[in-house]
């Protein structure tokens, strides 16, 4: 059992969460023993490539997995006033779970056009969750929505309240999504790739907005993204995922400045920086991410890893903890957290 005092500092904890999806009558192991601690008031980023399970993690937390997915084992605990609630033990669409979704946990999704109802005015869609969770009159709700629109930088909020989603640009629609997610002033906001479909200048505006929302209200944010550079600008803590497993977790400095896991290292070196030396080739990872059905034992990254040994492919890889709670799932690290100097011969197949 973890320390009591430590739990008080966390708003959310995931412990050995396993999720599987049934696809064509076979079961795919999508999340593999995912454990995460989310300190209250922090900004946690979950990064990884497509198919690594980062979005599924978010869906599992709020119990919005697709119909063919289910949490097989593990605990998802939400802490509030010294009280823990096991979210995954609640009924999916029961009263209690609904009091979390929207009210205590806000969600922002990538695809704004399919998340907003095209037939309803946006103001009403934002006010809906207010009316659901609070005892307010329609006029009071409208007032609160317009006030929030103004705070989020939506110009002419009184008029925009009555507009339809298609009348908004992508960046403005994402602001509306943020309004829906934060109107009930939730303590925790989960944002799944909120800026991936947006241009960089708009992305910068939205990220500044999110960061301010986090700081001003001491809110906790979980941002799911594939963009390492974006992580470096906003995160306090980072979890790196690969094929359903958290392979590295730590503070933003630990993970991005001193990455330990071979996958994190490769991921960081494969994106050119704005001041990259053009005479140096980008580091690549050979091959491609395997399907979850192909890897059933050992390290998920072993097939593409330059440091992998036979042991890596056979045994369960334990989580190693280094100075300052820097957690890495790799058995090739020495006690100081360094990888062996010599690359495995003939690795470049």
């Amino acid at each position, binding site marked *: 059992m973890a320390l009591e005092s430590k739990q008080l500092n966390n708003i959310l904890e995931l412990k050995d969460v396993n999720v599987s999806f049934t696809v064509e009558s076979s079961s795919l192991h999508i999340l593999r023993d995912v454990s995460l601690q989310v300190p209250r008031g922090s900004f946690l980023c979950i990064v990884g*490539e497509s198919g690594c399970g980062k979005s599924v993690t978010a869906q599992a937390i709020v119990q919005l997995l697709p119909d063919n997915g289910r949490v097989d084992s593990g605990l998802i605990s939400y802490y509030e006033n010294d009280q823990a609630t096991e979210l995954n033990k609640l009924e999916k669409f029961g009263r209690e779970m609904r009091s979390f979704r929207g009210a205590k946990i806000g969600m922002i999704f990538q695809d704004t056009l399919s998340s907003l109802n095209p037939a309803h005015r946006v103001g009403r869609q934002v006010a809906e969750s207010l009316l659901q969770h609070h005892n307010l009159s329609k006029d009071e709700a409208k007032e609160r929505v317009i006030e929030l629109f103004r705070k989020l930088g939506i110009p002419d909020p009184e008029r925009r309240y009555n507009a339809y989603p298609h009348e908004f640009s992508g960046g403005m629609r994402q602001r509306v999504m943020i309004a829906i997610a934060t109107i009930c002033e939730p303590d925790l906001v989960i944002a799944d790739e909120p800026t991936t479909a947006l241009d960089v*200048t708009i992305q910068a505006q939205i*990220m500044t907005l999110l960061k301010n929302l986090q700081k001003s209200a001491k809110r906790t944010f979980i941002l799911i993204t594939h963009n390492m550079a974006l992580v470096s600008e906003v995160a306090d803590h980072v979890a790196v995922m690969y094929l359903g497993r958290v392979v590295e977790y730590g503070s933003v400095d630990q993970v991005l400045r001193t990455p330990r896991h071979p996958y994190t290292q490769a991921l960081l070196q*494969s994106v050119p920086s704005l001041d990259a030396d*053009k005479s140096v080739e980008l580091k690549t990872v050979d091959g491609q991410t395997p399907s979850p059905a192909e890897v059933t034992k050992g390290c998920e990254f072993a097939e593409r890893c330059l440091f992998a040994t036979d042991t890596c492919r056979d045994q369960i890889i334990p989580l190693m903890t280094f100075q300052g709670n820097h957690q890495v799932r790799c058995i090739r690290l020495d006690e100081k957290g360094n990888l062996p100097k010599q690359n495995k011969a003939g690795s470049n197949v």
Partner: protein
Amino acid sequence: MSKEIVFTEPLYQAKGIKKYFPVTGGVLRRKIGEVKALDGVDLDIYRGETISIIGESGCGKTTLGRMLAVLQKPTGGELSFDFGDGLKNVVGLNRTEELAFRRRVQMIFQDPYTSFNPRQRVGAAIDEVLQVHGMKDPEERFSRIKESCEMVNMRVEYLQRYPHEFSGGQRQRLAIARCLAIRPELIIADEIVSALDVSIQAQIINLLRQIQRETGLSFVFITHDVAVARYVGHRIAVMYLGSVVEILPAGALPENAEHPYTIALLSAVPDMNLQGKKKEIVLQGEVPSPIDAPSGCAFSTRCPYVMDICKTTRPVLRLAYEADSSHQVACHLEKPPIGA
């Protein structure tokens, strides 16, 4: 800073390229306005260089690529290509001339899944291109295909497969192989790494750079990712709302950008190494619609340094303040806005 190679032999020249798309409305679908997707673009592409075109969505970079490939005809302006005996107009060519042009200029698209026929084996798809261009001998065609597959590190056995059997990165390699098979002189690559995961993206970027070094091909590399554009290209053309606002050597980024929009774009790009070290111009608002683009400078509605002249007179490309003949800016400001 790595040293810049200067290319001097022009291969392709675009002068004052305009592309207007009509906007129709009402029951009779009458023309009620125009979208100025491209509004007077000048661009020289030199033999052996990679020029990256960057800009945000709707800035016209894809339209420019399609113009350069003559997939659509420009509304105005001139496109001239060097077939080996000097620059020659390429708009409105006859069938044989057009084929000769297409053999030299090839295009790769963002989504390779939609650019391959799902019911045709990829080998046949590549073979077809060679047949169209008049290679009659099957053995010669096969050796060409084999050679181009080797260049993109694909096994020849894979040619028997169908497009759906490949991953996104592999399909993009095959699209590149199909281009290379007829040995073009210029490849226009439109957002070809945008849909790929970063580890795969790095493989394709390295591959492109390697092909470029080995064959001396010219590339037009269209992307929205500034860091990738800088890494891949020798020169960068920055576009905003249908015009090129700055052309500069890749090595001049990020420090020596002079156009306020380029600086704003750079400061919006998250970057691990340059955190807190970049010049900052934070843009408010969004790109105006190209239907009612501002008169004068297209950027004048959002530019923090806007002057009266910007609202009335359109700036043309001129030499940058940091006098380097390959660095041009379209801006009325006499000095770069933030100390260069």
